[in-house]
């Protein structure tokens, strides 16, 4: 065992903390990287599913016979039976496997299903309609007041009176309605798997962010044990929280493959993927908020609602108000059930909605008082819930400089206009956990000096392979190219699922531990050979040498030859995040946006987006920054463009194709500036995950910038031209 697991002292690392290209970057850029969609074993069949065309119905009958008569179709399999209730459009009814895409498409068309229509409800933004349709669940309530209720008082009545008093005593009261629509994950590689049997054992090439955790999910419905299933995922084309689980269509692919004795690839069509394979819950809020004349919030009183889709739920009340935690607050969360696919974790579950429903209200205080939004955020920092006020303060200063905030600021709606175009600034702050989860890494050192790191992780796009290679190479004093990284198989030592921004912290911990332990064993052999104490040895520049005496050394290769005939394999385990301090959790972040809005057309253009983010110790700033750029763009996307549009009567998802589901293009993003904030205090906390935090604030940030430009709040995201024009028209009438 290594004596103590630790990261190199700041400034002493050879590789960690410096920008590195991805080790699998060329494979990705030239099409060599094989994703689940690309795996094509000999004799493979293609398969697709038939999605239910109705948002709520009962299956009266399914007739597959026509499908199997289509030339080229090999097998059709029902996924629902007579009497089953379907609760959202796109839920898979049956699957067809065949020799070609066209044969399968023809086969799907030949399936006959009879449905019995049931009542449909999809209007999640309309609370009264949801209540009338009996589609709401029990509200979650949470009230905290500075003043305690007397023992004999009716608590609700006391809270009513107390909040009314606090609002009355406030210098300013903002009463607002805000919200954020459902969006989908839209992974560019749709959900799916290629299933291949080897006797009674299943190889499942699954597009998953959970390599170590999905074998069992295949095994149970197939009557196998997890050991009989190997899940493989070398590359995954996007997940964002939607690809943790094995779905029924994945199991169906395995069943068909078993029955026909050939491998089967079943990937979802784009429209089905959008309708059934992942979305983010909506959130809408009515809020009253009271502040003093400096903009410091004293009382928050809100009711919010939204939907998880076909499972009852909505945005958690714990993220309202978001980050800010005034001493007096009451919130009520009402879950709504609709005929739409159940939501799945979407990059920072709850937080983007919490932020978009809270920090716009804070900004409206600035608007109402004619204050600088920066000052209002700054003055409310003492109430943040995560003890990071100093971090936020420092990050705000950096962001303001990068944005040139002071020079560009004007009061809401008071800026100069260029014809019909006005510009504005907005900001918001956020928080996230991101601590490591249990992870194991095997380090193998071969007698010829070759090094491998092996673990059941996956690369969601974060540069996981590169980070593992960097940590390993750093520990052994080797160049990055000397390390081979094996990830993407459930047969490798189990590592964490890539969710909650835990991947980099998890794999860094377990890999550093394994590598330090392995080095210790090599050092013991070297020490014997050189006649020195193992403690005096350091691994650097391809050598193991006595510290301060470079003459007493062995090359890495010679050191490894001391292993004899067999490779050394050492397992690093990481169970809890707090037992050694190689990783930590909790980050803050500050974002600012500059937009232009055309009051005639309602079009919002991004000019500049700035984000400053802490994330503990940064292993590879190049890939870390990519995640920040990506989060900014995804944020611009849901702030300005993205929404699931449902027909209220039929529950049909109207824009379920890439051509219709609006996402930003390269020309829509403006200038993006990202800055990693890594003072000693953060570096010394160890590695913290990053995937989620920077995607939280863009909604509120951009909404605030648009409000600053117009002097009018566009209440619900995305801020489409129509909504901008509607908000302007409404303001004119008032």
């Amino acid at each position: 065992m290594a004596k103590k697991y630790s990261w190199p002292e700041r400034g002493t690392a050879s590789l960690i903390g410096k920008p590195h290209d991805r080790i699998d970057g060329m494979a990705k850029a030239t099409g060599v990287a094989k994703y689940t969609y690309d795996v094509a074993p000999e004799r493979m069949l293609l398969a697709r599913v038939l999605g239910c065309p109705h948002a709520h119905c009962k299956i009266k009958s399914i007739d597959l016979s026509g499908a199997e008569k289509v030339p080229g179709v090999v097998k059709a399999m029902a996924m629902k039976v007579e009497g089953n209730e379907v609760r959202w459009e796109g839920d898979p009814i049956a699957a067809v496997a065949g020799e070609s895409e066209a044969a399968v498409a023809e086969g799907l068309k030949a399936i006959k299903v009879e449905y019995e229509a049931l009542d449909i409800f999809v209007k999640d933004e309309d609370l009264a309609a949801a209540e009338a349709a009996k589609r709401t669940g029990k509200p979650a309530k949470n009230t905290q007041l500075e003043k305690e209720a007397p023992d004999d008082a009716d608590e609700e009545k006391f809270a009513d009176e107390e909040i009314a008093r606090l609002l009355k005593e406030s210098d300013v009261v903002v009463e607002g309605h805000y919200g954020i629509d459902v969006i989908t994950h839209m992974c560019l590689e749709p959900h799916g798997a290629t299933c291949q049997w080897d006797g009674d054992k299943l190889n499942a090439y699954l597009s998953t962010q959970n390599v170590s955790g999905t074998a069992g999910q295949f095994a149970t419905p197939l009557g196998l044990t997890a050991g009989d299933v190997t899940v493989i995922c070398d590359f995954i084309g996007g997940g964002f929280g939607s690809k943790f689980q094995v779905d029924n269509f994945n199991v169906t692919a395995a069943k068909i493959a078993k029955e026909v004795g050939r491998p089967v690839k079943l990937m979802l069509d784009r429209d089905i993927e959008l309708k059934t394979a992942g979305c983010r819950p909506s959130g809408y809020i009515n809020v009253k908020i009271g502040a003093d004349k400096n903009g410091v919030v004293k009382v928050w009183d809100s009711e919010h609602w939204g939907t998880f889709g076909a499972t009852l739920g909505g945005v958690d009340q714990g993220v309202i108000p978001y980050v800010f935690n005034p001493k007096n607050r009451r919130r009520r969360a009402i879950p709504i059930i609709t005929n739409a696919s159940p939501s799945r974790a979407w990059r920072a579950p709850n937080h983007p909605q919490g932020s978009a429903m809270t920090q716009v209200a804070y900004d409206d205080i600035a608007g109402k008082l004619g204050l600088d939004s920066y000052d209002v955020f700054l003055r409310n920092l003492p109430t943040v819930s995560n003890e990071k006020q100093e971090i936020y303060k420092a990050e705000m200063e950096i962001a303001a400089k990068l944005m040139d905030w002071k020079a560009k600021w004007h009061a809401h709606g008071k800026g100069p206009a260029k014809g019909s175009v006005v510009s504005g600034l907005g900001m918001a702050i956020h928080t996230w956990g991101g601590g490591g989860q249990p992870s194991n890494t095997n380090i193998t050192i071969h007698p010829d000096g070759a090094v491998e790191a092996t673990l059941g992780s996956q690369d969601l796009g974060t540069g996981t392979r590169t980070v593992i290679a960097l940590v390993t190479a750093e520990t052994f004093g080797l160049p990055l190219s000397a390390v081979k990284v094996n990830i993407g198989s459930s047969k490798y030592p189990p590592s964490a699922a890539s969710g909650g921004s835990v991947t980099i912290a998890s794999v860094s911990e377990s890999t550093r531990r394994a590598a330090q332990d392995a080095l210790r064993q090599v050092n013991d052999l070297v020490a014997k050979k050189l006649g020195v104490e193992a403690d005096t040895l350091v691994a650097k520049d391809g050598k193991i040498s006595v510290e301060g005496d470079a003459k007493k050394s062995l090359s890495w290769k010679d050191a490894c030859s001391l292993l004899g005939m067999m490779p050394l394999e050492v397992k690093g385990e990481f169970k809890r995040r707090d037992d050694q301090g190689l990783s930590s959790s909790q980050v803050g972040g500050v974002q600012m946006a500059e937009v232009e809005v055309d009051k005639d057309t309602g079009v919002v253009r991004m000019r500049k987006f700035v984000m400053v983010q802490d994330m503990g110790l940064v292993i590879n700033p190049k890939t870390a920054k990519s995640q920040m750029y990506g989060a900014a763009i995804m944020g611009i996307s849901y702030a300005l463009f993205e929404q699931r549009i449902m027909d209220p009567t039929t529950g049909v998802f109207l824009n379920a194709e890439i051509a219709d589901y609006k996402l930003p293009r390269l020309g829509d993003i403006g200038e993006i500036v990202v800055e990693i904030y890594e003072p000693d205090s953060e570096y010394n906390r160890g590695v913290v995950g990053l995937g989620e935090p920077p995607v939280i604030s863009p909604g509120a940030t951009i909404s605030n910038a648009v409000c600053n430009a117009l002097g009018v709040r566009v209440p619900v995201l995305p801020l489409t031209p129509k909504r901008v024009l509607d908000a302007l028209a409404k303001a004119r009438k008032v």
Partner: protein
Amino acid sequence: MADQRPFSGGGSNVSRRAFLKGSGAAAAATALATGSGVAEAADEKSKLVGPGATPIKLNVNGRERVLPVEPRTTLLEALRYKLNLTGAKPVSVDDSSGASMVIINGKPASANTVFAIACVGKKIQTVESLGGDKPDAVPVAFLHNDAMQCGFCTPGFVVAVRAFLDKNPKATEKQIREGLNSNLCRCGTYANVIMAAVEVVKGGKRG
């Protein structure tokens, strides 16, 4: 799915013929010989191919490849499942994502919106041709600028940037921002793609 279902069921030859006549593939399809010989862009205009698989000859990345395809097989499906060239990706049913972009006779095109038989006699270049031991400057710049995350859109983007810069070798950043809107990236790599393209214009080197 919008329409990868060209035939209205029944599978009769009549509907297939009617379809081929009305499609963009008709010219190429009717130019192909049926029977056991390899179809070339010949001038035997009277015969139809299909409905079954017919061998065709495609020029892909400078190599002549013979592969059996049905008339309704898209170039994307043929590349991916007959030639194991999986760089071009199936992302959208039309060409709105750019993920299946290849270069046909020097011009960018979506491999999922053209039939394989329509490509007989044309020069097809896929992203794989930009890799290898001496990679093209564009993927090298993508690597240096980390213009990728999950990477699923990346091969299509590399082809798009290559095609754009071939046409506009001195493109400014502004022109790049205005001219490269063909491709979609869900992970949000646009900022890095812009940096990569700018690097190539400034003299990014082949690997």
